[in-house]
Protein backbone atom coordinates (compact mmCIF):
# COMPACT_ATOMS: atom_id res chain seq x y z
CA UNK A 1 0.00 0.00 0.00
CA UNK A 2 2.78 2.42 1.02
CA UNK A 3 4.71 1.43 -2.11
CA UNK A 4 1.62 2.13 -4.25
CA UNK A 5 1.19 5.60 -2.73
CA UNK A 6 4.86 6.34 -3.20
CA UNK A 7 4.64 5.27 -6.85
CA UNK A 8 1.64 7.53 -7.37
CA UNK A 9 3.49 10.47 -5.80
CA UNK A 10 6.57 9.71 -7.89
CA UNK A 11 4.46 9.50 -11.05
CA UNK A 12 2.86 12.86 -10.30
CA UNK A 13 6.27 14.41 -9.60
CA UNK A 14 7.64 12.98 -12.86
CA UNK A 15 4.66 14.26 -14.86
CA UNK A 16 5.26 17.76 -13.54
CA UNK A 17 9.04 17.88 -13.46
CA UNK A 18 10.46 15.55 -16.09
CA UNK A 19 9.08 16.75 -19.47
CA UNK A 20 11.30 19.86 -19.81
CA UNK A 21 14.28 17.71 -18.86
CA UNK A 22 13.56 15.46 -21.87
CA UNK A 23 13.62 18.53 -24.10
CA UNK A 24 16.89 19.59 -22.47
CA UNK A 25 18.37 16.18 -23.23
CA UNK A 26 17.35 16.47 -26.89
CA UNK A 27 18.89 19.96 -27.12
CA UNK A 28 22.09 18.81 -25.45
CA UNK A 29 22.50 15.80 -27.73
CA UNK A 30 21.87 17.90 -30.81
CA UNK A 31 24.38 20.48 -29.60
CA UNK A 32 27.01 17.80 -28.94
CA UNK A 33 26.51 16.44 -32.43
CA UNK A 34 27.13 19.94 -33.75
CA UNK A 35 30.31 20.26 -31.67
CA UNK A 36 28.75 22.81 -29.33
CA UNK A 37 28.13 22.67 -25.63
CA UNK A 38 24.51 23.69 -25.97
CA UNK A 39 22.20 25.48 -23.56
CA UNK A 40 22.28 24.57 -19.88
CA UNK A 41 20.31 21.65 -18.52
CA UNK A 42 17.86 24.01 -16.83
CA UNK A 43 17.20 26.11 -19.93
CA UNK A 44 13.76 24.64 -20.77
CA UNK A 45 12.69 25.24 -17.16
CA UNK A 46 13.98 28.83 -17.34
CA UNK A 47 12.15 29.35 -20.63
CA UNK A 48 8.93 28.10 -19.09
CA UNK A 49 9.33 30.36 -16.05
CA UNK A 50 10.08 33.35 -18.25
CA UNK A 51 7.04 32.71 -20.44
CA UNK A 52 4.85 32.06 -17.42
CA UNK A 53 5.67 35.48 -15.91
CA UNK A 54 4.95 37.33 -19.12
CA UNK A 55 1.57 38.69 -20.06
CA UNK A 56 -0.11 37.54 -23.24
CA UNK A 57 -1.15 39.64 -26.20
CA UNK A 58 -4.22 38.58 -28.15
CA UNK A 59 -5.08 39.45 -31.69
CA UNK A 60 -8.47 41.15 -32.06
CA UNK A 61 -9.51 38.65 -34.70
CA UNK A 62 -9.29 35.74 -32.28
CA UNK A 63 -12.07 34.44 -30.08
CA UNK A 64 -12.26 32.31 -26.95
CA UNK A 65 -11.34 29.26 -29.05
CA UNK A 66 -7.85 30.67 -29.42
CA UNK A 67 -7.42 31.14 -25.67
CA UNK A 68 -8.94 27.77 -24.84
CA UNK A 69 -6.57 25.89 -27.18
CA UNK A 70 -3.44 25.53 -25.01
CA UNK A 71 -5.49 25.11 -21.81
CA UNK A 72 -7.58 22.25 -23.23
CA UNK A 73 -4.49 20.70 -24.79
CA UNK A 74 -2.55 20.74 -21.53
CA UNK A 75 -5.54 19.50 -19.54
CA UNK A 76 -6.16 16.64 -21.98
CA UNK A 77 -2.52 15.55 -21.98
CA UNK A 78 -2.28 15.90 -18.20
CA UNK A 79 -5.33 13.66 -17.78
CA UNK A 80 -3.92 11.15 -20.26
CA UNK A 81 -0.63 11.12 -18.35
CA UNK A 82 -2.50 10.05 -15.21
CA UNK A 83 -3.73 6.94 -17.03
CA UNK A 84 -0.30 5.90 -18.29
CA UNK A 85 2.06 4.00 -15.99
CA UNK A 86 5.28 6.01 -15.77
CA UNK A 87 7.43 4.87 -12.89
CA UNK A 88 5.61 1.81 -11.59
CA UNK A 89 3.72 -0.93 -13.31
CA UNK A 90 0.37 0.71 -12.53
CA UNK A 91 -0.87 4.13 -13.54
CA UNK A 92 -2.12 6.79 -11.12
CA UNK A 93 -5.67 6.09 -12.25
CA UNK A 94 -7.20 3.54 -14.56
CA UNK A 95 -10.26 1.60 -15.58
CA UNK A 96 -10.98 -1.07 -18.21
CA UNK A 97 -10.91 0.52 -21.65
CA UNK A 98 -8.84 3.52 -20.62
CA UNK A 99 -6.46 2.95 -23.53
CA UNK A 100 -9.13 4.33 -25.84
CA UNK A 101 -9.58 7.31 -23.54
CA UNK A 102 -5.83 7.97 -23.68
CA UNK A 103 -5.81 7.83 -27.48
CA UNK A 104 -8.77 10.19 -27.70
CA UNK A 105 -7.37 12.56 -25.08
CA UNK A 106 -4.33 12.87 -27.33
CA UNK A 107 -6.67 13.57 -30.24
CA UNK A 108 -8.65 16.09 -28.16
CA UNK A 109 -5.49 17.98 -27.28
CA UNK A 110 -4.53 18.04 -30.93
CA UNK A 111 -7.98 19.23 -31.95
CA UNK A 112 -7.81 22.10 -29.43
CA UNK A 113 -4.41 23.18 -30.75
CA UNK A 114 -5.58 22.98 -34.35
CA UNK A 115 -8.77 24.93 -33.68
CA UNK A 116 -6.78 27.63 -31.88
CA UNK A 117 -4.47 27.81 -34.87
CA UNK A 118 -7.37 28.07 -37.33
CA UNK A 119 -9.01 30.71 -35.14
CA UNK A 120 -6.19 33.18 -35.82
CA UNK A 121 -7.12 33.26 -39.50
CA UNK A 122 -3.45 33.16 -40.51
CA UNK A 123 -2.81 31.26 -43.71
CA UNK A 124 0.45 29.80 -42.37
CA UNK A 125 -1.26 28.52 -39.25
CA UNK A 126 -3.99 27.01 -41.38
CA UNK A 127 -1.37 25.19 -43.38
CA UNK A 128 0.35 23.93 -40.24
CA UNK A 129 -3.02 22.81 -38.88
CA UNK A 130 -3.80 20.95 -42.10
CA UNK A 131 -0.47 19.11 -41.91
CA UNK A 132 -0.82 18.34 -38.22
CA UNK A 133 -4.24 16.81 -38.83
CA UNK A 134 -3.01 14.91 -41.89
CA UNK A 135 -0.09 13.37 -40.00
CA UNK A 136 -2.21 12.83 -36.90
CA UNK A 137 -4.89 11.02 -38.89
CA UNK A 138 -2.21 8.69 -40.21
CA UNK A 139 -0.48 8.17 -36.86
CA UNK A 140 -3.65 7.46 -34.90
CA UNK A 141 -4.53 4.10 -36.56
CA UNK A 142 -0.98 2.94 -35.80
CA UNK A 143 -1.40 3.81 -32.13
CA UNK A 144 -4.72 1.98 -32.04
CA UNK A 145 -3.44 -1.12 -33.82
CA UNK A 146 -0.39 -1.20 -31.52
CA UNK A 147 -2.58 -0.91 -28.43
CA UNK A 148 -4.98 -3.50 -29.84
CA UNK A 149 -2.09 -5.92 -30.38
CA UNK A 150 -1.06 -5.40 -26.75
CA UNK A 151 -4.64 -5.90 -25.61
CA UNK A 152 -4.88 -9.18 -27.57
CA UNK A 153 -1.55 -10.37 -26.18
CA UNK A 154 -2.31 -9.58 -22.55
CA UNK A 155 -6.11 -9.87 -22.46
CA UNK A 156 -6.26 -6.56 -20.59
CA UNK A 157 -8.07 -3.38 -21.55
CA UNK A 158 -6.63 -1.23 -18.79
CA UNK A 159 -3.43 0.49 -19.83
CA UNK A 160 -1.83 0.10 -16.42
CA UNK A 161 -2.56 -3.64 -16.29
CA UNK A 162 -1.72 -4.14 -19.96
CA UNK A 163 1.78 -2.73 -19.59
CA UNK A 164 2.39 -4.31 -16.21
CA UNK A 165 3.33 -7.81 -15.03
CA UNK A 166 1.09 -9.53 -17.60
CA UNK A 167 3.24 -8.21 -20.41
CA UNK A 168 6.39 -9.23 -18.58
CA UNK A 169 4.97 -12.76 -18.22
CA UNK A 170 4.08 -12.90 -21.92
CA UNK A 171 7.45 -11.44 -22.96
CA UNK A 172 9.34 -14.62 -23.93
CA UNK A 173 6.65 -15.63 -26.42
CA UNK A 174 5.95 -12.23 -27.85
CA UNK A 175 9.32 -10.54 -27.91
CA UNK A 176 9.36 -10.08 -31.72
CA UNK A 177 5.85 -8.64 -31.63
CA UNK A 178 6.75 -6.37 -28.72
CA UNK A 179 9.75 -4.99 -30.53
CA UNK A 180 7.60 -4.33 -33.63
CA UNK A 181 5.09 -2.50 -31.48
CA UNK A 182 7.89 -0.51 -29.85
CA UNK A 183 9.24 0.46 -33.28
CA UNK A 184 5.78 1.51 -34.46
CA UNK A 185 5.25 3.52 -31.27
CA UNK A 186 8.62 5.20 -31.76
CA UNK A 187 7.50 6.48 -35.18
CA UNK A 188 4.17 7.55 -33.70
CA UNK A 189 6.06 9.36 -30.95
CA UNK A 190 8.27 11.22 -33.41
CA UNK A 191 5.19 12.22 -35.39
CA UNK A 192 2.99 13.20 -32.46
CA UNK A 193 5.74 15.16 -30.77
CA UNK A 194 6.61 16.99 -34.01
CA UNK A 195 10.20 15.81 -34.18
CA UNK A 196 12.43 15.14 -37.19
CA UNK A 197 11.91 13.32 -39.60
CA UNK A 198 8.27 14.42 -39.72
CA UNK A 199 8.53 17.98 -38.47
CA UNK A 200 11.52 20.14 -37.67
CA UNK A 201 11.03 21.83 -34.30
CA UNK A 202 13.85 24.31 -34.85
CA UNK A 203 13.00 25.53 -38.32
CA UNK A 204 12.73 29.28 -38.80
CA UNK A 205 10.55 29.26 -41.86
CA UNK A 206 6.79 29.31 -41.35
CA UNK A 207 6.31 27.41 -44.60
CA UNK A 208 8.14 24.36 -43.26
CA UNK A 209 6.77 24.40 -39.72
CA UNK A 210 4.02 22.14 -38.53
CA UNK A 211 3.65 22.33 -34.77
CA UNK A 212 5.61 25.55 -34.29
CA UNK A 213 3.52 27.52 -36.74
CA UNK A 214 0.34 26.52 -34.92
CA UNK A 215 1.54 28.06 -31.66
CA UNK A 216 3.05 31.08 -33.39
CA UNK A 217 0.38 33.48 -32.17
CA UNK A 218 0.41 32.25 -28.60
CA UNK A 219 2.44 34.23 -26.11
CA UNK A 220 3.30 34.26 -22.46
CA UNK A 221 1.66 31.66 -20.21
CA UNK A 222 -0.20 30.07 -23.12
CA UNK A 223 2.98 29.49 -25.07
CA UNK A 224 4.44 28.01 -21.88
CA UNK A 225 1.44 25.66 -21.70
CA UNK A 226 1.81 24.64 -25.34
CA UNK A 227 5.54 24.03 -24.92
CA UNK A 228 5.07 22.05 -21.74
CA UNK A 229 2.23 20.03 -23.29
CA UNK A 230 4.45 19.08 -26.24
CA UNK A 231 7.12 17.85 -23.83
CA UNK A 232 4.53 16.04 -21.73
CA UNK A 233 3.36 14.18 -24.84
CA UNK A 234 6.93 12.97 -25.30
CA UNK A 235 6.95 11.68 -21.71
CA UNK A 236 3.57 10.00 -22.13
CA UNK A 237 4.24 8.18 -25.39
CA UNK A 238 7.82 7.46 -24.31
CA UNK A 239 6.57 5.76 -21.14
CA UNK A 240 4.22 3.51 -23.10
CA UNK A 241 7.03 2.68 -25.52
CA UNK A 242 9.49 1.82 -22.75
CA UNK A 243 7.01 -0.37 -20.94
CA UNK A 244 6.46 -2.30 -24.17
CA UNK A 245 10.14 -2.48 -25.12
CA UNK A 246 11.54 -3.49 -21.72
CA UNK A 247 8.82 -5.06 -19.56
CA UNK A 248 11.31 -7.15 -17.60
CA UNK A 249 13.41 -4.21 -16.42
CA UNK A 250 12.86 -3.03 -12.82
CA UNK A 251 10.97 0.24 -12.53
CA UNK A 252 13.92 2.58 -11.82
CA UNK A 253 15.38 1.43 -15.14
CA UNK A 254 12.26 2.57 -16.95
CA UNK A 255 12.52 6.04 -15.43
CA UNK A 256 16.23 6.26 -16.24
CA UNK A 257 15.47 5.06 -19.77
CA UNK A 258 13.18 8.06 -20.45
CA UNK A 259 16.07 10.56 -20.80
CA UNK A 260 17.93 7.90 -22.77
CA UNK A 261 14.97 7.65 -25.13
CA UNK A 262 15.06 11.43 -25.45
CA UNK A 263 18.77 11.09 -26.27
CA UNK A 264 17.85 8.60 -29.02
CA UNK A 265 15.38 11.16 -30.38
CA UNK A 266 18.23 13.68 -30.29
CA UNK A 267 20.48 11.30 -32.22
CA UNK A 268 17.73 10.72 -34.81
CA UNK A 269 17.31 14.49 -35.15
CA UNK A 270 21.04 15.02 -35.54
CA UNK A 271 21.65 12.29 -38.08
CA UNK A 272 18.50 12.40 -40.21
CA UNK A 273 17.17 15.04 -42.49
CA UNK A 274 13.54 15.88 -42.42
CA UNK A 275 11.54 13.82 -44.90
CA UNK A 276 9.98 15.41 -47.89
CA UNK A 277 6.34 16.00 -47.16
CA UNK A 278 5.07 13.31 -49.52
CA UNK A 279 7.46 10.73 -48.05
CA UNK A 280 5.88 11.15 -44.60
CA UNK A 281 2.83 8.98 -45.45
CA UNK A 282 5.26 6.23 -46.41
CA UNK A 283 6.92 6.45 -42.99
CA UNK A 284 3.60 6.44 -41.16
CA UNK A 285 2.32 3.66 -43.43
CA UNK A 286 5.39 1.63 -42.49
CA UNK A 287 4.61 2.21 -38.82
CA UNK A 288 1.06 1.01 -39.40
CA UNK A 289 2.37 -2.08 -41.17
CA UNK A 290 4.75 -2.78 -38.27
CA UNK A 291 1.90 -2.55 -35.80
CA UNK A 292 -0.32 -4.68 -38.06
CA UNK A 293 2.38 -7.33 -38.37
CA UNK A 294 2.70 -7.33 -34.58
CA UNK A 295 -1.05 -7.84 -34.29
CA UNK A 296 -0.84 -10.76 -36.76
CA UNK A 297 2.00 -12.33 -34.78
CA UNK A 298 0.12 -11.92 -31.52
CA UNK A 299 -3.01 -13.57 -32.89
CA UNK A 300 -0.85 -16.36 -34.35
CA UNK A 301 0.72 -16.82 -30.93
CA UNK A 302 -2.72 -17.33 -29.43
CA UNK A 303 -3.49 -20.08 -31.96
CA UNK A 304 -0.21 -21.96 -31.92
Amino acid at each position, binding site marked *: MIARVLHILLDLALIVALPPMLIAVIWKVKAWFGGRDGPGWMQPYRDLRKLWNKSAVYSRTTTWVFRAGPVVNLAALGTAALLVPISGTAAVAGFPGDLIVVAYLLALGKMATVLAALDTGSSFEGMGAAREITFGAMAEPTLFVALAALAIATGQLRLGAMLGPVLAAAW*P*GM*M*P*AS*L*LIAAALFIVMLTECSRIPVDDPTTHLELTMVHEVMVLDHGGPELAMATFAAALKLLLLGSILLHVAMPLAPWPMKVVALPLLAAVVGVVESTMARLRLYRV*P*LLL*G*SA*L*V*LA*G*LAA*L*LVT*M*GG*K*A
Partner: protein
Amino acid sequence: MDLQTAIDGALVMVLLLDLGLLTLGRLATAIKALALQCLVLAPLPLAAEAMHGSVGGHGWLILGATIGLKVFLIPWVLLRAIRTGEIHREIEPLVGFTASLAIGAGLLAVAFAVGGGMRAPGLSISPLLAPAGLGTVAIGLLIMISRVKAITQVVGYLVVENGVYIFGLLLVGRMPALVEMGILLDLFVAVFIMAIVVHHIRRTFDHIDTHLLGGNGEASS
Protein backbone atom coordinates in the same frame (compact mmCIF):
# COMPACT_ATOMS: atom_id res chain seq x y z
CA MET B 1 16.47 -15.61 -24.80
CA ASP B 2 15.92 -19.17 -25.96
CA LEU B 3 16.41 -20.62 -29.41
CA GLN B 4 12.71 -20.50 -30.27
CA THR B 5 12.52 -16.75 -29.62
CA ALA B 6 15.68 -16.20 -31.62
CA ILE B 7 14.25 -18.10 -34.61
CA ASP B 8 10.95 -16.23 -34.39
CA GLY B 9 12.83 -12.95 -34.09
CA ALA B 10 14.92 -13.77 -37.16
CA LEU B 11 11.80 -14.60 -39.19
CA VAL B 12 10.12 -11.35 -38.15
CA MET B 13 13.28 -9.50 -39.09
CA VAL B 14 13.14 -11.16 -42.52
CA LEU B 15 9.53 -10.03 -42.97
CA LEU B 16 10.49 -6.50 -41.96
CA LEU B 17 13.31 -6.49 -44.50
CA ASP B 18 10.80 -7.70 -47.13
CA LEU B 19 8.65 -4.68 -46.42
CA GLY B 20 11.72 -2.49 -46.23
CA LEU B 21 12.76 -3.62 -49.71
CA LEU B 22 9.39 -2.43 -50.98
CA THR B 23 9.94 1.08 -49.62
CA LEU B 24 13.64 1.68 -50.18
CA GLY B 25 14.26 4.15 -52.94
CA ARG B 26 17.94 3.52 -53.59
CA LEU B 27 19.39 0.51 -55.33
CA ALA B 28 22.51 0.22 -53.19
CA THR B 29 20.50 0.39 -49.96
CA ALA B 30 18.09 -2.23 -51.27
CA ILE B 31 20.98 -4.57 -52.09
CA LYS B 32 22.45 -4.06 -48.62
CA ALA B 33 19.05 -4.81 -47.07
CA LEU B 34 18.91 -7.98 -49.15
CA ALA B 35 22.38 -8.98 -47.93
CA LEU B 36 21.22 -8.38 -44.35
CA GLN B 37 18.18 -10.59 -44.99
CA CYS B 38 20.41 -13.38 -46.26
CA LEU B 39 22.67 -12.95 -43.21
CA VAL B 40 19.69 -13.25 -40.86
CA LEU B 41 18.51 -16.37 -42.69
CA ALA B 42 21.86 -18.13 -42.96
CA PRO B 43 22.06 -19.58 -39.41
CA LEU B 44 18.47 -20.89 -39.44
CA PRO B 45 19.21 -24.45 -40.73
CA LEU B 46 21.88 -24.70 -38.04
CA ALA B 47 19.43 -23.50 -35.41
CA ALA B 48 16.91 -26.05 -36.67
CA GLU B 49 19.46 -28.83 -36.38
CA ALA B 50 20.40 -27.67 -32.91
CA MET B 51 16.72 -27.81 -31.99
CA HIS B 52 16.37 -31.36 -33.25
CA GLY B 53 19.53 -32.61 -31.61
CA SER B 54 23.08 -32.57 -32.85
CA VAL B 55 24.80 -30.08 -35.08
CA GLY B 56 26.90 -31.72 -37.75
CA GLY B 57 30.03 -30.37 -39.35
CA HIS B 58 28.40 -30.04 -42.77
CA GLY B 59 25.88 -27.67 -41.16
CA TRP B 60 28.69 -25.23 -40.48
CA LEU B 61 30.01 -25.76 -44.00
CA ILE B 62 26.65 -24.83 -45.49
CA LEU B 63 26.43 -21.83 -43.17
CA GLY B 64 29.82 -20.66 -44.37
CA ALA B 65 28.96 -21.21 -48.03
CA THR B 66 25.61 -19.44 -47.68
CA ILE B 67 27.12 -16.42 -45.96
CA GLY B 68 30.07 -16.24 -48.33
CA LEU B 69 27.90 -16.40 -51.41
CA LYS B 70 24.67 -14.64 -50.49
CA VAL B 71 25.92 -12.07 -48.01
CA PHE B 72 29.19 -11.08 -49.63
CA LEU B 73 29.65 -12.30 -53.20
CA ILE B 74 26.23 -11.61 -54.76
CA PRO B 75 25.76 -8.18 -53.16
CA TRP B 76 29.33 -7.30 -54.08
CA VAL B 77 28.75 -8.22 -57.71
CA LEU B 78 25.47 -6.31 -57.80
CA LEU B 79 26.98 -3.23 -56.13
CA ARG B 80 29.89 -3.37 -58.53
CA ALA B 81 27.50 -3.60 -61.46
CA ILE B 82 25.79 -0.45 -60.22
CA ARG B 83 29.06 1.38 -59.65
CA THR B 84 30.88 0.47 -62.83
CA GLY B 85 27.79 0.52 -64.98
CA GLU B 86 26.80 3.96 -63.71
CA ILE B 87 23.22 2.88 -63.42
CA HIS B 88 20.92 5.62 -62.26
CA ARG B 89 20.94 4.85 -58.56
CA GLU B 90 17.25 5.25 -57.86
CA ILE B 91 14.77 2.43 -58.09
CA GLU B 92 12.06 3.15 -60.62
CA PRO B 93 8.85 1.61 -59.36
CA LEU B 94 5.89 1.00 -61.63
CA VAL B 95 3.75 0.97 -58.48
CA GLY B 96 4.45 3.74 -55.97
CA PHE B 97 6.29 3.03 -52.73
CA THR B 98 3.31 3.61 -50.46
CA ALA B 99 1.05 1.55 -52.70
CA SER B 100 3.55 -1.31 -52.89
CA LEU B 101 3.93 -1.20 -49.11
CA ALA B 102 0.16 -1.49 -48.76
CA ILE B 103 0.04 -4.35 -51.28
CA GLY B 104 2.95 -6.02 -49.48
CA ALA B 105 1.16 -5.73 -46.14
CA GLY B 106 -1.95 -7.25 -47.74
CA LEU B 107 0.11 -10.11 -49.16
CA LEU B 108 1.59 -10.71 -45.71
CA ALA B 109 -1.87 -10.82 -44.18
CA VAL B 110 -2.93 -13.38 -46.79
CA ALA B 111 0.27 -15.36 -46.18
CA PHE B 112 -0.49 -15.42 -42.46
CA ALA B 113 -4.08 -16.46 -43.10
CA VAL B 114 -3.04 -19.26 -45.46
CA GLY B 115 0.23 -20.28 -43.85
CA GLY B 116 -0.99 -20.05 -40.29
CA GLY B 117 -3.00 -23.23 -40.75
CA MET B 118 -0.23 -25.17 -42.44
CA ARG B 119 1.41 -27.87 -40.40
CA ALA B 120 4.88 -29.17 -41.13
CA PRO B 121 5.16 -32.92 -41.87
CA GLY B 122 7.73 -33.29 -39.10
CA LEU B 123 8.48 -31.25 -36.06
CA SER B 124 8.33 -27.58 -37.04
CA ILE B 125 10.94 -25.26 -35.61
CA SER B 126 8.63 -22.24 -35.60
CA PRO B 127 4.93 -21.60 -36.29
CA LEU B 128 6.04 -18.60 -38.33
CA LEU B 129 7.92 -20.60 -40.95
CA ALA B 130 5.07 -21.19 -43.41
CA PRO B 131 3.64 -17.64 -43.25
CA ALA B 132 7.12 -16.09 -43.46
CA GLY B 133 8.06 -18.28 -46.42
CA LEU B 134 4.84 -17.60 -48.32
CA GLY B 135 4.98 -13.88 -47.55
CA THR B 136 8.59 -13.58 -48.66
CA VAL B 137 7.89 -15.40 -51.93
CA ALA B 138 4.87 -13.18 -52.59
CA ILE B 139 6.76 -9.98 -51.85
CA GLY B 140 9.68 -11.12 -53.99
CA LEU B 141 7.29 -11.64 -56.89
CA LEU B 142 5.80 -8.21 -56.20
CA ILE B 143 9.26 -6.65 -56.37
CA MET B 144 9.94 -8.45 -59.65
CA ILE B 145 6.76 -7.30 -61.37
CA SER B 146 6.55 -3.78 -59.98
CA ARG B 147 10.09 -2.50 -60.57
CA VAL B 148 11.57 -1.43 -63.87
CA LYS B 149 15.28 -2.19 -63.77
CA ALA B 150 16.95 -5.53 -64.52
CA ILE B 151 18.95 -5.30 -61.33
CA THR B 152 15.80 -4.96 -59.22
CA GLN B 153 14.58 -8.12 -60.95
CA VAL B 154 17.63 -9.87 -59.52
CA VAL B 155 16.80 -8.45 -56.10
CA GLY B 156 13.24 -9.71 -56.43
CA TYR B 157 14.47 -13.10 -57.58
CA LEU B 158 16.77 -13.41 -54.59
CA VAL B 159 13.92 -12.47 -52.25
CA VAL B 160 11.78 -15.23 -53.80
CA GLU B 161 14.72 -17.57 -53.36
CA ASN B 162 14.94 -16.61 -49.68
CA GLY B 163 11.25 -17.38 -49.33
CA VAL B 164 11.74 -20.84 -50.84
CA TYR B 165 14.68 -21.33 -48.48
CA ILE B 166 12.49 -20.49 -45.46
CA PHE B 167 9.83 -22.85 -46.76
CA GLY B 168 12.43 -25.57 -47.12
CA LEU B 169 13.17 -25.28 -43.42
CA LEU B 170 9.76 -26.81 -42.77
CA LEU B 171 11.22 -30.12 -43.90
CA VAL B 172 14.43 -29.91 -41.96
CA GLY B 173 13.47 -32.39 -39.24
CA ARG B 174 12.20 -35.03 -41.69
CA MET B 175 14.87 -35.08 -44.35
CA PRO B 176 17.88 -32.95 -43.55
CA ALA B 177 20.01 -34.20 -46.41
CA LEU B 178 17.38 -33.25 -48.96
CA VAL B 179 17.09 -29.75 -47.52
CA GLU B 180 20.82 -29.28 -47.54
CA MET B 181 20.97 -30.36 -51.14
CA GLY B 182 18.14 -27.97 -51.84
CA ILE B 183 20.10 -25.15 -50.28
CA LEU B 184 23.16 -26.02 -52.31
CA LEU B 185 21.00 -26.15 -55.42
CA ASP B 186 19.70 -22.72 -54.46
CA LEU B 187 23.25 -21.47 -54.27
CA PHE B 188 24.05 -22.93 -57.64
CA VAL B 189 20.95 -21.48 -59.28
CA ALA B 190 21.66 -18.14 -57.66
CA VAL B 191 25.15 -18.03 -59.11
CA PHE B 192 23.83 -19.15 -62.46
CA ILE B 193 21.08 -16.55 -62.63
CA MET B 194 23.41 -13.89 -61.34
CA ALA B 195 25.90 -14.59 -64.07
CA ILE B 196 23.23 -14.47 -66.75
CA VAL B 197 21.69 -11.27 -65.45
CA VAL B 198 24.97 -9.49 -64.94
CA HIS B 199 25.92 -10.46 -68.46
CA HIS B 200 22.66 -8.98 -69.71
CA ILE B 201 23.28 -5.80 -67.79
CA ARG B 202 26.76 -5.60 -69.25
CA ARG B 203 25.28 -5.82 -72.70
CA THR B 204 22.96 -2.97 -71.88
CA PHE B 205 25.90 -0.88 -70.77
CA ASP B 206 27.69 -1.57 -74.01
CA HIS B 207 24.70 -0.16 -75.75
CA ILE B 208 24.71 2.93 -73.57
CA ASP B 209 28.42 3.28 -73.99
CA THR B 210 28.18 3.32 -77.76
CA HIS B 211 25.75 6.20 -77.48
CA LEU B 212 28.25 8.02 -75.28
CA LEU B 213 31.03 7.26 -77.74
CA GLY B 214 29.10 9.00 -80.45
CA GLY B 215 28.77 12.18 -78.37
CA ASN B 216 31.77 12.50 -76.07
CA GLY B 217 34.59 10.68 -77.75
CA GLU B 218 36.01 8.02 -75.48
CA ALA B 219 33.66 6.98 -72.70
CA SER B 220 34.65 5.29 -69.50
CA SER B 221 35.39 1.64 -69.97
